[in-house]
């Protein structure tokens, strides 16, 4: 996805499950299926809740209604939004609140059964209650898939992350267990950042 961003610069090697993701041989659409992505701003498609979730499975050629129904319900349940929307699956997704939209987007990613889920500041546009719900959800989800989350909220990182990496101006400064990073950072810049004395 980052090749869609202008002025993006990369160094080093990028491997997911041993596959070099920038190798010419790698099928970018399969890669994107295996790596789900949730954006900063909720971006549900302007269609019904059901069609939003069914979009990815349909893309991969699933058309049988019973199978789609199952995927839709399963994905919505995993994103713990099923109870809120089960009676209005045919309603337009844009009628939902921001927090619901974001969980719908998570469900939509899950419907592609990804192995890794990238979340780019998924709660920065949401209120604290919706944020709480999404954090609970991430706790659940991280049991069966890898979540990579970008956040500017250090409390959020300490609450949900097992491992934390600190990036500064595009450079990876420090990476380790969340507890180690926040309690005894090795790099001076990390320490200055987490204690709020930065910049």
């Amino acid at each position, binding site marked *: 996805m980052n090749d869609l961003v202008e002025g993006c610069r990369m160094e080093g090697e990028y491997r997911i499950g041993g596959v070099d993701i920038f190798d010419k041989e790698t099928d970018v659409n399969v890669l994107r*299926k295996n790596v*789900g992505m949730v954006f900063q701003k909720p971006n549900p498609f302007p269609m019904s809740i059901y069609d939003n979730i069914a979009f990815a499975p349909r*893309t991969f050629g699933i058309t049988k209604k019973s199978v789609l129904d199952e995927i839709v319900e399963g994905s919505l349940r995993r994103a713990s939004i099923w109870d809120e929307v089960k009676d209005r699956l045919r309603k*337009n997704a844009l009628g939902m609140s921001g927090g619901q939209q974001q969980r719908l987007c998570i469900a939509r*990613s899950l419907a592609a059964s990804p192995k890794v889920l990238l979340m780019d500041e998924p709660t920065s546009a949401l209120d604290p209650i919706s944020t709480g719900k999404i954090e609970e959800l991430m706790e659940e989800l991280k049991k069966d898939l890898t979540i990579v989350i970008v956040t500017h909220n250090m409390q959020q990182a300490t609450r949900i992350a097992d491992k934390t990496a600190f990036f500064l101006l595009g450079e990876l400064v420090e990476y380790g267990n969340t507890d180690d990073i926040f309690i005894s950072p090795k790099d001076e810049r990390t320490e200055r950042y987490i204690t709020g004395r930065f910049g």
Partner: protein
Amino acid sequence: MRRLYSALKYVCAVALVISLIALVAVVAYVLINGVDKLSAELLFGDYKDTPSILPAFIGTLQLVGIAAVIAVPIGVASAIFLVEYTGNKGKFVKVVQVATETLAGIPSIVYGLFGYLIFVVAFGWGYSMLAGGITLAIMILPTIVRSTQESLLSVQGGLREGAYALGTSKVRTIFKIVLPSAAGGIVTAIILAIGRVVSESAVLLLTINMVVNKIPESLLSPGTSLALDIYYFASHGYPDEAAATAVVLLVFVMMLNLLAGFIGNLIRKNTYGDTK
């Protein structure tokens, strides 16, 4: 200072009243002169001896059909290429932009002359509905490209990325996400472009040759349109029939405009649902 502000308000109000009077005067004049001549005879009567607009009505529909069949797919596809495949930036897009804007501003008689020299003379089709229709298609093409482009650009950026992130191909993203979201604007633009075809006369004078008393036998026959009939009646001593034809044309264009708004809203509602 405050006095100046309230004076501005009155100046604008007077300007508005003048615009309204001009508009109402035209419509009222046409209606007053035309309505009592609006007979079944004029609308569907025998066009060989007495004035009738039946050939013009059929001719107008033919022209709309030819122009739309050619201009809509080409125009929409061009806009898709510009916005979705070139990212709507770069030198090439800039050049196309300037070209479409210039073409949209050219007086229609110039298109008419082009159609006459190319289709009527060089291609040897003679005055024909086909020559007129194709020339009209060329005329509305820039408008369709331009407004489709605007509609595509107004689709929220996040939607495309959202689809790509699910492993959706570009083609599927365009057809399933982008076009449905932009459809309201595109359809409105197309119907308004058709409105221009219906009201055009300069192009047709030079390409279909105003044969008012004959229904075109084929697309290669000459013919007439509603707008041309107005000119014909007015210049051949039937001013009231001209006004009556103008009433028909007014109603036609008005219906197209209403239809544009209606369909546009309908699609928008279908896509964005009961979000209010």
